[in-house]
């Protein structure tokens, strides 16, 4: 029987430790840095949930999505946070033939009442091929669209690693890895990066191939700058340099792929560790993982001009990290970066705060976790100067958790 669903065995996992988070907000002093409050919120996600996304809409309302599993049935649901209370979960879609993967998982986008969400469905029995299916809620139609496959190639191949970004009240930029060319010829071909703009009911308005050769299994990320949407991804040169590249959609055209920094990380393999971009007007932040010379690092670059130029890399973590980064930009212009610290047996989800000039302001432990793939990728989002963090607690039966972090003065 194919593996599509996971009912993980967690007997190896240590008890989850989350000191101080089960009470109300507690202001704590981190090591030689600023104050912060960190509060574990209740979770609307049930047991056997994972693969969370936490996003905000244009009004600053927080939404959480997750995948729950019961036997072979996988279900994508979401909930909205209002004054520390979650709305009753609403199911977007479910199926018994989904491709449920710890690194490649559903995206949720909410803007002006319109919602877009995707999941991955196996496209053929006995293969490793899957399609991106999506459904769209239109506030004007007051209904969800029929599920549709986002890509139109009709090729049985791998499609995934989606990112979504509202571009206006009615449309969403969706970026994904598209394996249509991997299935050409006898050998495994090249993974492409594609993007499209979809209206509120999921109709394709525009579609492009952004890059004809990218890393096969890393997440994409997108953000809105003053100059238009920016997309970041792990590129792949002909000689297997797999550094992070960017493209921006300005004045109706995409800029050519450009590295944000030349790590010169040459690998003939999959890091499964995509970059994360956030933006506020002209300010852009990109965080990413690299491991040149077998030295794992998390780095951050900042741009003051919508991605026309970037700072030299700022080292976020080195040595004891397996990446899995996230980034979000606060109203203050400060940048929060989430990453995994593997320096001790109990792996930690860390949140580092940087000034708009790249100075480290704070560095806190959000939760203890496991380096296991089952713990997935923590996701962060900010509203104002408040950061929300979601992750999967795999200490027992897996369950999505959410915490809220407010940084105090440095």
């Amino acid at each position, binding site marked *: *029987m*194919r*593996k599509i669903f*996971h*009912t*993980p*065995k967690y*007997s*190896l996992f240590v008890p989850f430790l989350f000191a101080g988070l089960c009470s109300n907000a507690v202001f704590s002093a981190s090591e030689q840095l600023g104050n912060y409050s960190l509060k574990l919120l209740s979770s609307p996600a049930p047991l056997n949930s994972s693969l969370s996304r936490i996003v905000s809409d244009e009004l600053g309302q927080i939404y959480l999505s997750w995948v729950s599993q019961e036997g072979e049935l996988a279900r994508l649901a979401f909930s909205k946070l209002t004054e520390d209370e979650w709305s009753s979960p609403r199911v977007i879609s479910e199926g018994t033939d989904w491709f449920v*993967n*710890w690194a*490649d998982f559903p995206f949720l986008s909410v803007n002006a009442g319109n919602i877009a969400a995707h999941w991955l469905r196996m496209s053929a029995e*006995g293969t*490793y091929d899957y399609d991106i299916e999506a459904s769209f809620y239109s506030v004007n139609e007051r209904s969800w669209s029929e599920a549709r496959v986002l890509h139109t190639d009709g090729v049985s191949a*791998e499609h995934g690693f989606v990112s979504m970004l509202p571009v206006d009240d009615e449309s969403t930029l969706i970026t994904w890895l598209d394996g249509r060319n*991997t299935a050409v010829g006898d050998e*495994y071909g090249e993974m492409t990066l594609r993007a499209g703009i979809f209206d509120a009911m999921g109709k394709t308005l525009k579609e492009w191939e952004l890059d004809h050769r990218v890393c*096969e*299994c890393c997440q994409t990320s997108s953000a809105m700058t003053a100059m238009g949407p920016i997309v970041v991804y792990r590129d792949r040169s002909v000689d*297997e340099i797999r550094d992070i590249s960017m493209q921006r959609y300005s004045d109706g055209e995409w800029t050519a792929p450009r590295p944000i920094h030349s790590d010169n990380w040459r*690998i*003939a*393999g*999959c*890091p*499964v*560790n995509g970059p994360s971009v956030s933006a506020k007007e002209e300010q852009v932040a990109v965080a990413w*993982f690299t*491991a040149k010379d*077998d030295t*794992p690092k998390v780095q951050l670059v900042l741009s003051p001009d919508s991605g026309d130029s970037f700072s030299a890399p700022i080292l976020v973590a080195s040595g004891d990290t*397996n*990446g899995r980064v996230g980034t979000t930009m606060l109203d203050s212009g400060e940048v929060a970066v989430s990453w995994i610290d*593997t320096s001790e047996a109990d792996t930690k989800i860390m949140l580092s705060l940087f000034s708009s000039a790249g100075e480290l302001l704070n560095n806190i432990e959000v939760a203890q976790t496991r*380096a*296991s*793939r*089952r713990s997935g990728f923590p996701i962060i989002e900010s509203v104002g100067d408040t950061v929300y963090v979601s992750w999967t607690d795999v200490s027992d039966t897996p369950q999505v958790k959410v915490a809220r972090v407010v940084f105090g003065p440095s």
Partner: protein
Amino acid sequence: MFQLILAVLLPLSIYGAETEEANWRIVNYWSEWCAPCRIEIPMFNELSEQLSSSNVRIVGVNFDEDPREVTLDIADELGIEFPTLTLEQVEELDLRPPDIMPTTYILSPTNEVAAKLIGMQSKADILGQLMQLGLTVQSN
């Protein structure tokens, strides 16, 4: 037809180890979603067969840490013919999970990491590493 016959000669116990503890191990991390992993599996199958009477064993690790039953199903579908370790066996190796897939470790009989091979490997890559480790490889 050219046939490669391998004999890996170890410094101490030259051939035909009596116990598993005396074996060197080639530990290949794989995942079903990793295309380069799938591509190199037939090579490891072939090499595993060719090394079967030597002191080198090839074992696999499902990077995704699926439950055992699921892991064995996937290994079967991928056509993996060498043993796949249990989660408990993987923990005993005390290896840092790889940052890149595929990754292959060569472990000494005392469980020390003798080589870490990142990315897709060829048979020549593996044999070259064994030779660099002083494990004489004969072929004809």
